[in-house]
């Protein structure tokens, strides 16, 4: 004999089912979009990584995705990134190449154009011209630039009323300020070759020199190259004798300790974050940012970093959300105020907190013109020819003819072995 369920049992079952449904729905509503996912992002070990580490918790709270920030010093970042990208390693979901590496790494990076179009990323807010030098290559958008740092200098405002704008006046000022007997030098310079070559470049370009013309014909052997080598060598007469062995840290420390009047540096990395901290600086309130003297144009060296997604990345959507957050207007303002990271957005540069800051002269330097050297795959090797050549010349190991011919022969060999892709012009120097 069949038995039917009593009305009370049926009702109980329905109630339980409804409650379960409500619980599941509630859980789904509370669950974040990328809960359970994680990304690993690769940064340069400086203020950029520090900012990223600060935002990681906030990003997780907003999206549910965990962020692991990995950072390396500049000297090793290129090879870590290069090896990971070229071997198809999926360790990183987002990487931050320096703009000079874009040409080498672009084949291994995701084109961000579909993401930009889908989410209507405010591309017009990026400084015009910057994206062309940092993040765009070969008609692809491989990264969003998040920093825009033209090379400048820092100087003592208690000793120098106004920075000279040409090299003759500059050296006249150095003659006046230099006092080695009292352990005070006109210049604090990072003499190690990986820093010094950039200093030489900015002089060479600012007096009209070029490594090659726009069609890649090598033009390094020029009066401008020779004059800029002499200027660079002359600097060393006004620098601490220990300078040839100094890195950026030691050079900045000499300036912050009050032992130099002018620091050739990337001030945003060491001087700006510490210059007005009495615990770390003896020049509190006595420093400012100045532009590099020039003769023909105000072109200086650009340091810009962009952030993109490797083709081998696993969590590309999450990585894109991270990129949008890190490059947002809000975060670029925090990056500027807390970490001295110069923004890539026009709207952030226009904010009063930025316009009235000590770092605002960088905007002027940027407007005058900041360029990077060759972004082609052979660019890193080309830079090394410059490094060796300039370093050997200023330490009197090579004469000028040898230094120039070494660069010229090296560039020609590189361009022959690894020619730029068809249609790619030299938009740098």
């Amino acid at each position: 004999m069949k038995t039917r369920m009593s009305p009370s049992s049926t009702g109980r079952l329905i109630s339980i089912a409804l409650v379960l449904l409500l619980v599941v729905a509630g859980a789904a509503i509370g669950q974040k979009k990328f809960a359970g996912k994680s990304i690993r992002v690769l940064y340069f070990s400086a203020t950029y990584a520090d900012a990223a580490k600060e935002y990681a918790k906030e990003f997780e709270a907003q999206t549910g995705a965990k962020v692991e920030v990995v950072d390396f010093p500049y000297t090793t970042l290129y090879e870590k990134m290069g090896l990971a990208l070229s071997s198809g390693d999926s360790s990183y979901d987002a990487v931050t190449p320096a703009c000079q590496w874009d040409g080498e790494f672009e084949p291994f990076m995701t084109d961000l154009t579909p993401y930009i179009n889908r989410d209507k990323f405010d591309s017009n807010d990026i400084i015009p011209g910057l994206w062309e030098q940092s993040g765009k290559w070969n008609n692809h958008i491989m990264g969003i630039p998040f920093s825009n740092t033209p090379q400048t200098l820092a100087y003592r405002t208690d000793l120098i009323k106004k920075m000279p704008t040409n090299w003759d006046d500059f050296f006249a000022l150095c003659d006046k300020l230099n006092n080695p007997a009292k352990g005070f030098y006109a210049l604090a310079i990072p003499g190690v070759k990986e820093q010094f070559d950039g200093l030489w470049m900015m002089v060479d370009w600012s007096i009209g020199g070029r490594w090659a013309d726009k069609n890649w014909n090598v033009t390094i052997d020029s009066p401008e190259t020779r004059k800029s080598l002499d200027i660079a060598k002359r600097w060393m007469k006004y620098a601490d004798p220990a300078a040839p062995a100094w890195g950026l840290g030691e050079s900045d420390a000499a300036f912050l300790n009050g032992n130099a009047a002018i620091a050739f540096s990337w001030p945003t990395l060491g001087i700006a974050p510490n210059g007005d901290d009495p615990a770390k600086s003896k020049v509190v309130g006595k420093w400012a940012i100045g532009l590099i003297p020039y003769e023909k144009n105000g072109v200086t060296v650009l340091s810009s970093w962009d952030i993109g997604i490797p083709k081998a990345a696993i969590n590309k959507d999450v990585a894109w959300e991270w990129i949008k957050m890190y490059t947002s207007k809000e975060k670029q303002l925090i990056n500027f105020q807390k970490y001295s990271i110069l923004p890539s957005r026009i709207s952030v540069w226009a904010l009063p907190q930025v316009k009235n800051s000590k770092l605002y002269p960088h905007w002027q330097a940027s407007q005058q013109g900041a360029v990077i050297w060759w972004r082609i795959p052979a660019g890193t090797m080309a830079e090394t020819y410059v490094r060796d050549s300039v370093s050997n010349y200023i330490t009197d190991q090579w004469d000028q003819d040898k230094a120039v011919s070494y660069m010229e022969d090296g560039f020609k060999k590189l361009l022959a072995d690894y020619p730029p892709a068809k249609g790619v012009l030299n938009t740098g120097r």
Partner: protein
Amino acid sequence: MLVTRTLYQSRTDKALSWVFVLPVILILLATAFIPLGWGLYLSFFRYKLNLPSATAFIGLKNYLDIFSDELTLRSLRNNAVFAGLSVSVELLVGIVLAMILSDDRRFSRVLVSILMVPMIIAPVVAGTLWRMMLDRTYGVVNYLLSFLGVPGISWIGDPKIALYTIVLVDAWQFIPFVAVLVLSSIKAMPRSFLDAARVDGASPWKVFWSIILPVTSPVIIIVAMLRFIDAFKVFDTIFVMTGGGPGNATEMLPTYIYRQGIKFLNIGYSSATAVLFVILMSAIALVFQRLRDRQLLRIG
């Protein structure tokens, strides 16, 4: 029947010995021979890891480029000078130190323990420490020398002396290594040799020159070989102290190969340089081995 058993045993022994040696062969194959062979193969190509489209077979061009590349030759010259000088200093001071420590006083045993400290510091740490101490303006070495009236020396900033500075740092770190090994060889010598010499009225110098040095020479030669090869492989100290600078004054082959292979991802060229490096090291090891064999024959 006896002959058959002996033959059988002999074959079994041979087979067993191959079985025991096989794991080592397999490991060496996987970690040494195959990578070396692959490196040799790559050395005949123009091959940049991040530009696979530019890969091309170029035969011996990489090798020819090495001999016309000024920087490679300079690196090799720097390496040879560094290895020659540092090993000479380490041997000289190490042997003297070993002689001083060869008595059995408690003081000697304590001193040996203290002397081991530089040896156990990682080269990267040692290089970083010395880089700070040798700074021309802020370093403690120049500060102490100033009390003797010595003006500031640009130890790692002057290209004329940077290489010799690295030699001193390397010697500081590895003199204890030489001293300890030579000391153990001295202690392993039969006492009767020394006692007999003393009874015959030999002076301490004669005892050292005619007995101790010849008897310990096979060990000294091996130590020299090990140090020479290690000195040629120097990387960490150079990387952190000078980066190969000023200019290329302290560039060594390993740092140069690293630059080509890891920084530039120029695999073909760096493989060729590495192959030549291996051949050079093998030749050096062979020379020392022959020297040692000859010395062993001499001392019977």
